[in-house]
């Protein structure tokens, strides 16, 4: 790093924001607009900035009446019920309701700071009331916030990995940050921790999940290695969330190890039979509409030998779901398809024939629960059960794709972090690093960005008030 940059790194700063995604930017912008001198330390290089925010696409927002691109109303109770349904009650009601209420004020704030929204994407009409989509997606949102941050004179350093957050007693004093291979000590009067979860640290995942984690794919940024989270855990910060759990969905097995994002999802499962490595079915593929079942298949596939599954459809169904990023494996016979997929042909054929024999006549409706179920087979397929009998046959491999981890810092309603002896005076957290405080399990589309925005703004505001 040049001497000029090394001098610029030293500020002096009122507030240091660790991380460079949505929550970090919301915190930094909010604090700067309170007249504070703010530094952002982003561990990723510039072109990869923004953490998992760069893969997001929308923001779930409470609203009374139409708001920006959102139609009708989405009230607090309905929002909270939606959340409770996915978390199975594993959520802090107080924090959750506060987050939901705050979301309404966030949307105009986001627009005022450069974020643009667009109507629901094609194929996602069901979300047009609840989720405001970012024009261009999360990376466009991140770009807009960085442009705003630059215009506000916020100090921004990329490739800047914070390795240690120094706490003395109950006060933060400085961070150690590595830039260009050199460690620097940077002091600040307050710190906001917004550096994400640890899902990109495969060793940590393996410790939490066991050796099968080696076969997991990470849907988001490779830079969420949880270095700061671990550092805070080592200093006995109070935590929340199951350390052994992560949110995983079933994605295309050919997706990249990291950063595959949205395009690697597969929506064909409800119209398919899914078999494991041994050619056996293992779960009801037609249990519910796919958006509601999407999340459980990560776990289901993770529990299979070698953490892999194969979704098999025939030509009747190939146009019934959103296209995915990789073309399917195609063959004219099931044996040939099995061979191309690397599973036993005779076994796959037997499984599909048994399934086909269990199918019953009836009306097939791809967009609703049609009750077209199998009879006399285990596991049953309870909807959309049509014989797989019309070549060509198509196959997709499935792997668990990790979205985020639940273990995080426990925060108060004001985003304040606590140490072993109570609240830390000048440490706040926002975004994925503290999302476990609200999301105990499951996931609600667009809620991660809501948590990041709400808590980012709170953390920025509180940190600014503290250094006054």
């Amino acid at each position, binding site marked *: 790093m040049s001497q000029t940059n090394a001098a610029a790194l030293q500020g002096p700063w009122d507030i240091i924001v660790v991380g460079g995604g949505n929550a970090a930017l919301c915190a930094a912008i909010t604090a700067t607009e309170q007249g504070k001198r703010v530094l952002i330390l982003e561990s990723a290089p510039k072109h990869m900035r923004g953490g998992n925010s760069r893969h997001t696409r929308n923001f779930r927002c409470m609203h009374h009446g139409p708001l920006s691109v959102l139609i009708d109303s989405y009230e607090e109770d309905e929002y909270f019920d939606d959340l409770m349904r996915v978390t199975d009650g594993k959520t802090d009601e107080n924090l959750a309701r506060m987050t939901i209420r705050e979301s309404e004020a966030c949307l105009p704030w986001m627009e005022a700071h450069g974020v*643009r929204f*667009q*109507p629901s994407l*094609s194929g996602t009409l069901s979300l047009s009331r609840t989720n405001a989509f970012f024009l*261009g*997606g*999360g*990376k466009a949102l991140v*770009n807009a916030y960085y*442009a705003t941050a630059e215009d506000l004179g916020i100090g921004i350093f990329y490739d800047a990995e914070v390795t240690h957050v120094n706490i003395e007693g109950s006060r933060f004093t400085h961070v150690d940050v590595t830039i260009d291979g050199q460690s620097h000590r940077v002091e600040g009067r307050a710190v906001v921790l917004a550096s994400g979860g640890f899902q990109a640290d495969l060793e940590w995942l393996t410790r939490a999940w066991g050796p099968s984690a080696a076969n997991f794919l990470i849907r988001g940024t490779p830079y969420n290695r949880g270095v700061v989270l671990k550092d805070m855990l080592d200093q006995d910060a109070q935590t929340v969330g199951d350390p052994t759990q992560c949110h995983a969905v079933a994605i295309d097995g050919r997706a990249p190890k990291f950063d595959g994002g949205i395009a690697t999802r597969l929506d064909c499962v409800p119209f398919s039979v899914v078999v494991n490595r041994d050619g056996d079915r293992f779960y009801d593929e037609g249990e519910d509409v796919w958006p509601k079942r999407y999340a459980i298949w990560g776990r289901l596939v993770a529990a299979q030998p070698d953490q892999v599954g194969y979704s098999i459809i025939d030509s009747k169904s190939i146009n019934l779901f959103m296209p995915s990023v990789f073309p399917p494996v195609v063959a004219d016979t099931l044996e040939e398809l099995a061979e191309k997929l690397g599973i036993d042909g005779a076994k796959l054929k037997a499984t599909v024939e048994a399934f086909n024999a269990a199918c019953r006549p009836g009306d097939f409706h791809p967009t609703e629960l049609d009750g077209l179920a199998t009879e006399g087979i285990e596991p049953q397929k309870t909807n959309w059960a049509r014989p797989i009998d019309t070549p060509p046959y198509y196959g997709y491999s499935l792997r668990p794709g990790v979205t985020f981890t639940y273990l995080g810092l426990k925060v108060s309603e004001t985003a304040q972090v606590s140490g072993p002896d109570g609240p830390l005076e000048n440490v706040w957290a926002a975004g994925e690093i503290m999302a476990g405080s609200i999301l105990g399990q499951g996931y609600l589309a667009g809620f991660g960005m809501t948590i990041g925005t709400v808590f980012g703004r709170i953390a920025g505001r509180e940190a600014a008030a503290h250094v006054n």
Partner: protein
Amino acid sequence: MSTEIIQEARRQVEICNACRYCEGYCQVFPAITRERAFADGDITQLANLCHNCRGCYYACQYAPPHEFGINLPAALAEVRADSWERLSWPGGLARTFQQSGVALAAALTVGFAVIFATMQALRPEDGEGFYAYMSHTLMVAIFAPAFLLPLAAIAISLRDYWREIGGEFPRWSHLVDAVKAAGRMRNLDGGQGQGCNFEQEDRFSNKRRAYHQMVLYGFLLAFASTSTGTILHYGFGMEAPYGLFSLPKLFGVPGGILMCIGTVGLAHLKVRADKSLGAARVWGGEMGFIALLFFVSLSGLVLYAATGTAWVPTLLALHLGSVLAFFLLMPYSKMVHGFYRFAALVRDAQLKA
């Protein structure tokens, strides 16, 4: 060559179709979501529909160095440039002039030489204004075919394009939709009026859109100037030179000024923009074309300003020489983009309906 770049564009378009985050930027993405499989003609149509606003590139989570390597503006620009070369006649000519500013300069020089030589050899006995140096009949004899034959060549190319993309006979409403899109340069407005990403990376700006429309409307005004002059000449027996408050000048002077400002602006932005988001191999030809348009408009204005001076014959030759080069190069230079884009907009209006 053609197959490879179409295949690469298809690969990228299929990934875009699985993501769809960019739907709100322009007409390309809604057109993508209407399809599931993309024939070569579909890719050519998407390429010509793309206005290279670059919004999708800067918003893309899969842009290089991501292993998906999505750079759709460049992939479509390659297909687009290739389609103009492939469909033009003779194709080799288009390749030369699209790629090379130097070739354009050489053509310009030839244009000058032709006009100078003609003026020397066929200087009229009498005549007023410009016609003292080159008779009206001779001007028409040179420029009518120099204008109409290239237009005929473009018409043949467009017919082949229309066949390749499977276009249907256009209805009035399709044309209206295309005129509206082009007239407001809707596909450079970022979907919400914030403009495109060109000269300042991920920040939006309407500069490129504004400069482009200055050139477009300036060009149309200049064209109206020539047309009204022709009508005055043949219809009313009123010959050039025309006064400042005549129709040819009322159209021509503002048109020339708009084109001058617009071309300088476009060139300035083009130097600052990232070459790798376009078809890099035709950058020189595109820049040469902007320079040629600038020269045409500036020489026209200067010629008017020099009325009555000894500079007129020289300036007249320079202006007419550049216009000649411009006309003859229409099918083989960046000028064809307007025709193809318009056709693509008409086709998209059909598909939307």
